[in-house]
């Protein structure tokens, strides 16, 4: 009996599909990479939390060295969980900068009093406009920024030691 090509077509289509299904099992559809990776930081000019209005927080503050920008807020419960690890990073000499997201300055300062301040500088993003430009969709989020001000990685969620070792350190070593 001869094998007509058209009769084999359904089988071929199904085998191709099952390859994708197989591949899909190891993917995570919930994981959303940031669309700003590889792009420069958006321009911003924010008042610094805790100081008078003489100085402002701009992307220039992050130039010349690899920095880590952390989006946090006093209303964010999960932010408390990463504080200890952030202090550990600050002790190691990592340049940490904070973006205080949709927060009241006094409440934020009180929170820092209770939980400590690992940041070199903190910008007050009261309306969340800078966060919107960054593509932030929740707190906490952590951004890795290179010496020229380009965003290299974004981690949504609590920063832990394992994520630091798995995602941040390898990227930092080549910067």
């Amino acid at each position, binding site marked *: *009996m*001869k*094998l*007509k090509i058209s*009769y*084999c077509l*359904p*089988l071929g289509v*199904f*085998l191709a*599909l*099952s390859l*994708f*299904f*197989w*591949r*899909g*099992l*190891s*993917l*995570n*559809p*919930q*994981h*959303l*990479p940031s669309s700003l990776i590889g792009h420069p930081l958006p321009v911003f000019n924010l008042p610094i939390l805790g100081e008078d209005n003489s100085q402002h927080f701009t992307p220039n503050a992050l130039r010349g060295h690899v920095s880590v920008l952390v989006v946090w807020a006093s209303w964010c419960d999960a932010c408390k969980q990463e504080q200890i690890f952030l202090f550990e990073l600050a002790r190691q000499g990592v340049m940490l900068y904070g973006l205080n997201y949709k927060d009241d300055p006094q409440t934020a300062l009180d929170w820092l009093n209770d939980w400590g301040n690992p940041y070199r500088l903190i910008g007050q993003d009261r309306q969340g406009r800078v966060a919107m430009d960054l593509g932030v969709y929740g707190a906490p989020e952590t951004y890795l920024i290179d010496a020229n001000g380009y965003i290299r990685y974004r981690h949504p969620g609590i920063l832990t030691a394992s994520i630091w070792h798995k995602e941040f350190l390898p990227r930092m070593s080549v910067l």
Partner: protein
Amino acid sequence: MMAEIGVYALCWALIVALLAVTIPSLGIWLNKPAWQRVIDRCIYAQSVCVACAFLCLAGCFLRNDFTVVYVLANASVALPWYYKLCAVWGGHEGSMLLWIAILSFWMVVVCITSRSLAPEIRIRVLIILAGLSVGFLLFLLVTSNPFSRQFVWLNTQGRDLNPLLQDPGFLFHPPILYMGYVGFAVAFAFAIATLCLGRFEPSWAKWMRPWTLAAWCCLTLGITLGSWWAYRELGWGGWWFWDPVENASLMPWLVGTALLHALMVVDKKTQLLSWTILLAIMAFSLSLVGTFLVRSGVLTSVHAFAVDPLRGAAILLFLTLVIGGSLALFAWRSQTVAQSMQVRPISKESALLLNNVFLVVMMLTVLLGTLYPLCIDGLGLGKLSVGAPYFNTMMVGLAIPFLFLMGLGLNVRWQTDNLWRVLQSLAWNMIISVIAPLCILLRFSNQLRITAYLGLVLSMWVLTTTLMILWRRLTRVPKKPLSGAFCGMLSAHLGVAVTVIGIAISTGYGKESTVIMRPNDHVHLAGFRVQLQSIQTIQGPNYHGIRAQFKVIWHKHQAMVYPEKRIYEVGQIPMSESAIDVTPFRDVYIALGEPFEQNAWSVRMYYKPFVRWIWVGGIAMFLGGLLALFDRRYYRKSGS
């Protein structure tokens, strides 16, 4: 103790199913009829075991047996008993047990009613069904045991059934839907049996049609119920979201409808046989693929069960064996069974073939949209999602020629016909279809929405052509009573027209409003006056919350509706229960949003004209299938 009995019953069911596959197969190979006759008893034994296991799981729920992990995760002490019974199929393991229970049920019915079928095809059909049971039972016992236990002494109320599922719709929607999915296994088994056997008798087509009809009926009802339930429950006034799980139920339905129509041609003329076999394989394959998609974590969906890649891998293996095997068998053997197609260009056969083409293209469109994110991610090209705009545009674009064809195809003769003659006979229908909606829309509303108009034109076309068939039938052969199949066809096609009217008008002329209201405020929506009268706190069996009283006024019509906002104790999950003022020609839909200070609430209101017609049309399609099912021509003794 009950859990142990349940799991042993499942093990016995697996053993019996394995016997049901091996002994009769050896009986065929070694030509021993006595071994082949074993299959009946094996199938009965298997269904008794599975029924026992199902009852044991239900019993565990009713007794709040939290040593069973599945019960702990899906029920709570305060859950009302009827929802405890529903919770049996509330999670992955229990719903797989429901699958197998329904498969066993279908197998018993096939076993009993197929005594008059030729033995060589009957035995192969039953062996294939038993083989499917083996696969599912293995999967259940190895990866998704509903009776797995935990022996930690917990002071807990249980994790509770998801509040969205604590609704009467949940009592009916999954079992009916599964009856449809699993029912296509019978047509599938038949198709494979035919390929294995290598020949096809014309009388077998008559035998296959009731099974396909029954499965199609269940799926139609299940989808209609699901859409109505989503409308009531989700609080956004929408009735179809192109969610992967919804698509997973629509695709087998589309192919099932094509199969029903193709079987007509096979029955009458023994043509299009290999195409029909392929359709039967596709329908069940799509049911299986749907099962995989929602249980493996491969796609995100509001319906998806808990993610577990191990289960996903197991289902994928099963899928590859079953679907890959059957499609390989098709490629190899279908020419042995079927002759070549000889279909004249203008004939009922070609109209039905074109119907099939459209339905399969629609199914492929939905499949492409559902799987596209997965394929793009799999190729490393990024993350994207495909939503309503794609599906709506494509399906509307395909539905327009399809509905036009529906009217034409009904009026074309078998064997061969003349297109000009058909169009001429339908001239008045065309004129009425274009003019009548114009008059109706301009009379009842002061603006003409083009999409609604187009929908009405097409549904009028289907309506008038279907009624014309009835008229011709009554006037030309007046003495002969109308057969079940004919009435069924009328009802189903009219149902399609009614659904299209519902969709066209509710989408085209619906209105929406979101306002903040306090008690004694009122707003106007589409000529209605909606007044918030009072807000009270309420306490339910496993929730607390508030209930608002709204009065909906239109001329002399007044109705009270009571939307609620509930917080379920166990998960502290808030839920909005919407309230709908229902009349045959419109819905006024009210849902509570968020609270503000001073007893104010945000309220979402929708005016949805003709939205009920969508589901009335679905029920009409279901009734049509049911009427056709009881046509006695399928149950007469099979002659040649």
